[in-house]
């Protein structure tokens, strides 16, 4: 287990390094010059040079990348901003704030969105999928299967707007989406996120229903499930202890990837509901040519996916003793 973790962590570090370098290169491949934009309308070559120096982009690209990388581990000194402690992700070109603190400020909203909707779609998706598998071929299965097919082809920006209009504006059942930190007001936190949770869950629930159903149907026809029945175990025991155990692996794999993606920022969802999370931050960073911010957000998103991949592999080995971690 320890060897597995060390090996995978090193691998993850390499991946993140490559990603950050790619973002760096791609950013400067774009035609717009951040210094030129920050410099303003009346821009002499002297002020441009000063702006470049202030933003920390007056050196050649490899040097800039090296400075940025060094900042992560030992911190960094800026002429205009002063010292930035390690891990330093730099200062935003746009609002002149440290990237890390902005990300830390926005991350809770994204985490809340991701975890809250995960709970909803896991419970409903797996629950409905199991029911459909038990009632295979019956009316309930057919309704669940076709409903989930429809739901999984929906788009958040359609359902989100519609749900807000219906549930919030017309029926007044739920609160308009907004983010209140959990620590300051837990009830307000849940109330404000309920609509985005439900909307985001709708699509995921459908996928998990379909996946759970097919996995369960498959594992219920396994020989070892028949053996368990032949031993005299009850249907319920066989269903949960044997069939579900076999169906869990693929579902957890997909969930790990989904959660990683969600933690990287549900861009469309956050945009639809005006929730200030990582997703909106990344949209803004792209549109304002804010390299340090973009790098920071991309790294967090990539790290979330990489970390959950490692977690999934570790959990897989716990579920299935045939899988060996090495």
């Amino acid at each position, binding site marked *: 287990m320890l060897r597995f973790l060390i090996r995978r962590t090193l691998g993850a570090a390499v991946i993140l390094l490559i990603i950050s370098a790619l973002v760096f290169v791609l950013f400067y491949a774009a035609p717009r010059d951040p210094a030129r934009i920050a410099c303003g309308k009346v821009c002499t070559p002297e002020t441009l040079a000063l702006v470049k120096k202030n933003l920390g982009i007056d050196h050649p690209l490899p040097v800039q990348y090296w400075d940025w990388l060094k900042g992560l581990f030992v911190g960094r000194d800026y002429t205009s901003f002063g010292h930035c402690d390690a891990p330093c992700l730099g200062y935003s070109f746009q609002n002149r704030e440290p990237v890390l603190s902005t990300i830390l400020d926005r991350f809770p909203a994204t985490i809340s969105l991701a975890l809250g909707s995960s709970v909803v779609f896991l419970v409903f998706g797996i629950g409905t999928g199991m029911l459909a598998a038990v009632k*295979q*071929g019956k009316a309930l299965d057919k309704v669940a299967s076709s409903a989930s097919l429809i739901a999984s082809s929906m788009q958040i920006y359609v359902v989100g707007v519609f749900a807000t209009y219906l549930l919030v504006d017309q029926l007044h059942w739920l609160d308009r989406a907004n983010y209140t930190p959990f620590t300051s007001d837990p009830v307000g936190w849940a109330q404000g996120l309920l609509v985005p949770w439900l909307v985001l869950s709708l699509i995921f629930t459908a996928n998990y229903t379909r996946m759970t159903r097919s996995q369960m149907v498959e594992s219920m026809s*396994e*020989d*070892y499930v*028949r*053996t*368990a*029945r*032949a*031993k*005299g*175990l*009850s*249907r319920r025991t066989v269903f949960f202890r*044997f069939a579900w*155990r*076999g169906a869990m692996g693929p579902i957890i794999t997909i969930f790990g990837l989904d959660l990683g993606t969600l933690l990287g920022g549900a861009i469309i969802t956050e945009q639809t509901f005006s929730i200030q999370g990582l997703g909106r931050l990344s949209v803004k960073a792209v549109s304002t040519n804010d390299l340090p911010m973009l790098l920071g957000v991309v790294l967090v998103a990539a790290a979330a996916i990489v970390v959950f991949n490692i977690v999934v592999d570790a959990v897989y080995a716990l*579920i*299935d*003793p*045939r899988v060996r971690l090495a």
Partner: protein
Amino acid sequence: MSTPFLSVRDLRVHFSTHDGVVKAVDGLSFDLEKGRTLGIVGESGSGKSVTNMAILGLHDPRNTTMDGEILLDGKELITAGERELEELRGNKMSMIFQDALASLSPYHTIGAQIAETYRKHTGASKKEARARAVEMLRRVGIPQPDIRVDDYPHQFSGGMRQRAMIAMALVCDPELLIADEPTTALDVTVQAQIMDLLKDLQQEFGTAIIFITHDLGVIADIADDVLVMYGGRCVEKGSKKEVLNTPEHPYTLGLLGSMPSLDGPVDVPLSPIPGAPPSLLNPPSGCRFHPRCSFAEQVPGGLCSTERPTLEITDGRGSACHLTPGQKRELFADHAPARTN
């Protein structure tokens, strides 16, 4: 005569599928006493496994209709409720499956799987059940059972998995043991060990065994009586000696002819049965074997393709064939004689 320990009467197992009704077992009857072994032989799809799954009540009730009578120690199983069957399964009657790797749960240790059956039926404590599992593994010849009990199936060899499977099936001292091709996937030396093990256990506990196989060599080794199935029906029944030495049905004769002999000259070609097993969705009319039977034209009036031959059993011996005994003596004489002792 007292009622037999296991009595199957006119058993019919039909599956409804998208394409129609599959008559997997179509009127099968047999008896089995304690301490005896009944060998059921037949090709794939002849209804051997379906019959035995029916005894345990393991068919999916949603697409299966079962008719007839299955009496185990006087108790009717076809109409029995799920709870009653759960009580019997793994306890009074249990089953060994062919592919032990697929049939054992990959997610639980061997010991846990054996102990689970024991706890379910005896209410023993975890500790007692574990001790019992170790004891069972020792009895079926697993070396270092107190260590191997914590292994997972994938850590066992093929032969050991089958032994573990047998240990699991026997943990509650069942009175009826159904072995569904338990040795088919094993190499011959392991196969011989497994069969010796079954014979020893039967001697010790007086278990009634149904042994399903398509291998007549295995039948010759282990069975007391033999039932030959074709297309969901019994075509021939008798003691092992009778069936193997003086077969009365052309299909049995064909099976014997397609088996290589070690005693005879080695260059004698095998004579496989022509054609393929019948479709159970749309079975052949009359005798289900007639399209493949090389003697069908010997029966006057094309009777084989129009009328189903009845199975007449006298003293446990009989076959379902339109050929007269005289014809059989004459026609079967040219074919390779079976060999068994």
